[in-house]
């Protein structure tokens, strides 16, 4: 048998059939997602073009709403606080268990019990990714607030748009936000916060701790919050999308990495546009991804904390 024969044989080998439960779980998810919606496209390769279109669509929607005098966020006298942005979200409403699909409205008092990783889009365009097994309640915002979420247990990752009004996540400790991306974990009375960008105030027992990009902190109920050494990027890997870039400009990849981590990247406009990259980005640490990128593209890289400079 020569080497070519071995290659041919290897190409023809077939692995085992997956277990029925694996196939069932995958097919069930595929069925639920069989008519994919564009609302999930926020982090895609075409995200910028999508966002531009979305801005026009939102503007048009606002104009139509004003012109017709219809409050699109008001239905049946209840205020819509958010909409579902993924499939099959388990929600408890007025004592009833519901399964809601994309675009379904969420009201004050709705309790989300995510059975799979799910997304919701808040009224102010902030997004919340909710991990499997998380319990999250949408509370009515108080005066001067734009959103109030109560995290009973589990993990959420928030991308909060900069806007007027306080944004609160209450767990055992309280988290106040302006415009930022961060994660909150509630685990048996311990609230942990991990910040990817912006600033977050963690409040507990009358004390406040301000956390900036690349910082983590935690607070136990009735104890003052403290800063911890946890790497926010590692802590929030669960929430990162998997994406595959195929022959895309380096700048586009760096922008995506910056949007999905606490890292900032510096590279010349020439490099950003000229170097074409194919890379699969999963839940690997950002330094590993940067090293692989630099290695395969023949580039130099230098880390200064969470700031990365890329040169030729």
């Amino acid at each position, binding site marked *: 048998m020569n080497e070519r024969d071995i290659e041919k044989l290897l190409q023809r080998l077939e692995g085992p059939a997956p277990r029925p439960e694996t196939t069932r779980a995958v097919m069930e998810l595929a069925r639920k997602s*069989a008519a994919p919606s564009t609302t999930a496209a926020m982090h895609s390769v075409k995200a910028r073009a999508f966002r531009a279109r979305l801005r026009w669509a939102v503007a048009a929607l606002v104009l139509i709403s004003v012109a017709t005098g219809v409050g699109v966020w008001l239905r049946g006298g209840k205020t819509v606080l958010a909409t579902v942005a993924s499939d099959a979200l388990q929600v408890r409403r007025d004592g009833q268990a519901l399964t809601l699909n994309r675009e379904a409205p969420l009201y004050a008092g709705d309790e989300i019990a995510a059975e799979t990783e799910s997304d919701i889009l808040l009224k102010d365009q902030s997004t919340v990714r909710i991990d499997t097994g998380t319990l999250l309640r949408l509370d009515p915002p108080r005066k001067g607030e734009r959103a109030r979420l109560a995290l009973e247990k589990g993990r959420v990752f928030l991308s909060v748009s900069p806007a007027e009004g306080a944004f609160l996540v209450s767990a055992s400790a309280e988290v106040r936000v302006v415009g930022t991306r961060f994660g909150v974990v509630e685990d048996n009375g311990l609230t942990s916060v991990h910040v990817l960008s912006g600033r977050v105030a963690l409040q507990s027992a009358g004390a406040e701790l301000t956390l900036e990009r690349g910082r983590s902190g935690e607070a136990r109920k009735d104890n003052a919050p403290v800063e911890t050494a946890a790497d926010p990027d590692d802590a929030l890997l669960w929430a990162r*999308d998997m994406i595959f870039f195929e022959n895309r400009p380096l700048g586009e990849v760096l922008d995506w990495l910056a949007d999905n981590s606490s890292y900032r990247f510096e590279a010349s406009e020439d490099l950003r546009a000229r170097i074409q990259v194919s890379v699969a980005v999963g839940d690997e640490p950002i330094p590993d991804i940067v090293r692989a990128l630099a290695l395969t593209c023949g580039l130099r890289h230098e880390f200064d904390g969470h700031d990365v400079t890329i040169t030729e």
Partner: protein
Amino acid sequence: MAAIDNNHNLLSAYQGGDLRAFERLYTQYAPRLLGYALSLLGDRDGAEDILQKVFTAFIRRAPQLPPETRVGTYLFAAARNHIANAYRSRERGERFARNYEVFVRCRSLGSDDPAENAETGELLQEINGALAHLSVKERDVILLRTQGGLSFTDIAKALGRPRGTVATQYRAAIAKLRHLLAKVELEP
């Protein structure tokens, strides 16, 4: 290999909501991905978990994938990422799934002739055994190339190694397999 990479139509059909297109992609790739994961992780539960994660991510990302996406390359690169994470989270040794039939059949070798089937079965056992003697790195390169249909450039990007290194490792691993299989043939 061409059949594996020419799945743009299936992807487009699935993006349009055709579930049968997804089922065909799953049927085509799931056993290969499972074999790949199993051969690197060495445990069936972990490999099934990787398979489910890969397809869950694919289902979520499918609406945004460009139509020219090579589905096989995408799925194997994703599997490779998840396997790397599994290695990080659990200290795994250099173990191969000896207790499992990683590769259970040969496509296009199905025959009504019992003698031919027996020969195929022996061949599968031999190649399974020979793969077990490769390092994880060598197996990784070989299976990404032959099972996933990835080009050397794609493998280099997925593994973060230079293309030349990957090509050299692949050739060396194939030569090692040949040597191992020749040894089996010589033994009584």
